[in-house]
């Protein structure tokens, strides 16, 4: 039951929001008044006020760095606002704290994981909760209840396994389970779908609709605008920390939303490019390793090769092997027809391969360092005379990329830790591009990035291939993958199940391959 294109999404939207409009929702459950949040050098939220009505799904959108995450953190008590009031159920607060927020029935799925890596999924789900009376924990009971929750969500997660051993997507599902396991009245979700693929997204939507039926109010943040049209009742737009406006979802369309977010008209397409596929630059033969089995493919000059697959298919694992980050068990890698030995990332970089990792916090950025420092770290040799770093060139390059991607920051000396999630992602991309590789692997490049910046990245990818470079793009965003790729390779549980040429692109077909090919086409995940 997957939507092949956004047209279908839209049709569903009307149905969904129609049923959501039952009764009158005039009851304001949560409002914020004149909230300000200052950070040194930055005003993240600027006198923002808005209201959320009981039982609605209220979307909150804005460009990267608009202040969405900061706002919801003030609501959950993760941070203290500089000034302003929060009104929940008619009670006024000048600030929240996590315990108070919990008492008010506020639950949050944060943009960044808030899991305890060393303890089991079950314990994470019930973190901080009393699941039984007395001072003793009944762990078996917790595991049983967690399993029930995951079963309801149609995902299979070993509830006794430490969450650090789970893939990012599974971790996100644990986050979701954690939030919905509680008896919340207001559930705030900050980009919950970012690490998910289509089938989990569908599961999530199901959960959200069920919650809504139970009368739970939901604040939903996403950069995937089509999701809003499917789910939301109303949408509030923020820009530069300030309130722009609130609209009923029926009264607005995608273009208008984007204009509100960006403050200007913005064309949203997958820009066309004209490149002729050149000679073969990369060939992978019978690659085994890191959970992947017998994978072969080729990449040509000027090509964007997409990789599709469900969560945990092993795409990231494959890319890491090619990039030398994880060991290859057997197989061959050819560059321009020459076999190369890649034993380390440095070998890969030396061979002209660049990699934009999917997990920006863990693998991408250096949080304590400045933006400009991060920008050139992947290719320091080119920015130094062999020993000393050329700081002038560093400044120029960093300024270039900041302009190109619109990295929102008061200065290039700002620590990356203080940037919003999307802006951090832009730094990761800048950093890899500055290394000037011939083949660039983009692993979930647009995760958490706003529409405007996405356009920039697409444009940039086109420029790169037009300039004779080649790109491998791993993405869980199907329209994006189909819009950008020349070919798509599909991976299922570490095995290549197909390769689809541009002419044959079809979401259903690709998803079928991604769930194990035609024979296994009806995987349990796809029922419903």
């Amino acid at each position, binding site marked *: 039951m997957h939507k092949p294109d956004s047209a279908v999404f839209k049709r569903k939207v009307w149905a969904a929001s129609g049923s959501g409009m039952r009764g009158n929702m005039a009851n304001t459950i949560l409002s914020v008044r004149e909230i300000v949040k200052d950070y040194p050098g930055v005003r993240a939220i600027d006198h923002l006020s808005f209201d959320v009505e009981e039982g609605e799904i209220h979307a909150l959108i804005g460009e990267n760095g608009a202040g969405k995450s900061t706002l919801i953190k003030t609501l*959950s008590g*993760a941070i203290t606002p500089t000034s302003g009031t929060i009104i929940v159920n008619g009670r006024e607060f000048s600030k929240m704290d*996590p*315990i108070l*927020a*919990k008492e008010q029935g506020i639950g*949050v799925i*944060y943009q960044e*994981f*808030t*899991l*305890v*890596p*060393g*303890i089991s999924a079950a*314990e994470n789900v019930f*973190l*901080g*909760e*009393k699941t039984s009376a007395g*001072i*003793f*924990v009944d762990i078996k009971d917790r595991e049983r209840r967690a399993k029930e929750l995951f079963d309801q969500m149609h995902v*299979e*997660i*070993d509830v006794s396994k430490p969450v650090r*051993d789970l893939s990012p997507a599974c971790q996100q599902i644990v986050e979701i389970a*954690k939030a919905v396991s509680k008896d919340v009245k207001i559930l705030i979700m900050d980009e919950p779908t970012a690490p998910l693929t289509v089938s989990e997204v569908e599961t999530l939507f199901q959960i959200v609709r069920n919650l809504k039926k139970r009368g739970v109010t939901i604040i939903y943040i996403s950069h995937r605008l089509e999701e809003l049209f499917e789910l939301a009742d109303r949408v509030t737009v923020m820009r530069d920390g300030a309130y722009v406006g609130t609209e009923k979802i029926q009264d607005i369309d995608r273009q208008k939303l984007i204009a509100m977010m960006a403050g200007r008209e913005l064309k949203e397409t997958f820009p066309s490019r004209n490149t002729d596929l050149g000679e073969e630059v990369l060939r992978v033969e019978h690659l085994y390793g890191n959970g992947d089995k017998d994978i072969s493919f080729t990449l040509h000059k000027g090509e964007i090769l997409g990789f599709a697959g469900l969560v*945990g298919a092993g795409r990231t694992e494959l890319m890491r092997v090619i990039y030398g980050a*994880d*060991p290859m068990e057997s197989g061959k890698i050819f560059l321009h027809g020459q076999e190369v030995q890649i034993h380390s990332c440095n070998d890969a970089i030396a061979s002209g391969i660049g990699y934009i990792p999917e997990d920006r916090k863990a693998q991408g950025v250096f949080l304590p360092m400045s933006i400009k420092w991060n920008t050139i770290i992947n290719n320091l040799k080119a920015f130094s005379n062999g020993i000393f770093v050329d700081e002038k060139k560093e400044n120029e390059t960093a300024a270039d990329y900041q302009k190109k991607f619109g990295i929102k920051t008061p200065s290039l000396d700002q620590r990356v830790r203080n940037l919003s999630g999307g802006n951090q992602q832009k730094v990761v991309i800048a950093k890899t591009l500055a290394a000037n590789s011939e083949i660039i692997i983009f692993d979930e490049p647009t995760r958490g990035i706003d529409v405007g910046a996405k356009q920039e990245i697409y444009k940039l990818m086109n420029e790169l291939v037009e300039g004779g470079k080649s790109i491998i793009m791993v993405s869980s965003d199907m329209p994006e993958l189909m819009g950008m790729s020349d070919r798509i390779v599909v991976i299922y549980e570490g095995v290549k199940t197909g390769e689809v040429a541009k002419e044959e692109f079809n979401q259903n077909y690709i998803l079928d391959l991604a769930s194990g090919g035609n024979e296994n086409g009806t995987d349990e995940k796809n029922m419903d």
Partner: protein
Amino acid sequence: MEQTKKTWIDYYKKFGIYIFLAAVFIFFAAAAPNFLSYKNIINILRQVSMFGIVVTGVSAVMIGGGMDLSVGGQMAVVGMILGYFMVNMNMGIVPAIVIGIFIGCLFGSLNGLVAVKLHVAPIIVTLSMMLVLQGVAYLITGGYPITGMPEAFTMIGQGYIGVIPVPVIIFVIFIIFGWIVMNKTYLGRHIYALGGNKEAARLAGINVDRLTVFIYAFTGFAASIAAIIMVGRTNASQPGAGSSYPFDCMTAACLGGISISGGEGKISGVVVGVIILGILDNGLVLMGVNSNFQSVVKGLILLAAVAIDCYQVKTKKS
């Protein structure tokens, strides 16, 4: 998600430290004269009790993502205060013990409070605390030890109940208590959560500040119990006591599988770690090994044990 079949490494992961203990035990049983006598086993247990109690406390802090380098100083000061009250001020045993424990908890809470309120890394807070307390211990009597504790008090360190030395009984009660708290109660689970991801714990509604102070207070409690045993055992309060504890505790905790970065480790492992060190101390002396050489052996054993323990973690991840 498919389960790969269990390799020996998984078994080692589960039983590693016990295998290590067995190996060390068998080695000394064969090589050290009189090692395997019933009395010597009791002996070893008595020797490790005091240290083991402190290490249990330190392990709780480490599991909670902290560190306590000040336990030695806490022991010294509590010991001096005990002696001062009982000998110089002729206070009764019970009130002296109560005050001693209270002061231990106070020092611990102070560590926790400073770490929480001033947002300073625990290792630095407790390092400062150690410097301060070591100084204070000497300032109480100007550096002289206090001797001549009441007879009944020395029983705590030297006495027996049946054939079991009193310190061993206290130690056993302590670890059973610690084990139940860490494994079976909400409090224990919260401590693991705190150590694993403090922000996640906070956002889950755990009062992380209060919990932090509580854990440090517990370590102070452990240190004060150990101080009582120490004073009873040597019949003297000495200001220089515990000066080697910061490293010794860290060594024992790491040997027992407590992770430096918090959130991981088991009380049972810690007990085994402590016993391994106790056996080494005892066995090497029985074998007549030079004390400098003992230091070398301990260093290598620690490294070997932790390396094997880490080996699997690495294998699992990559």
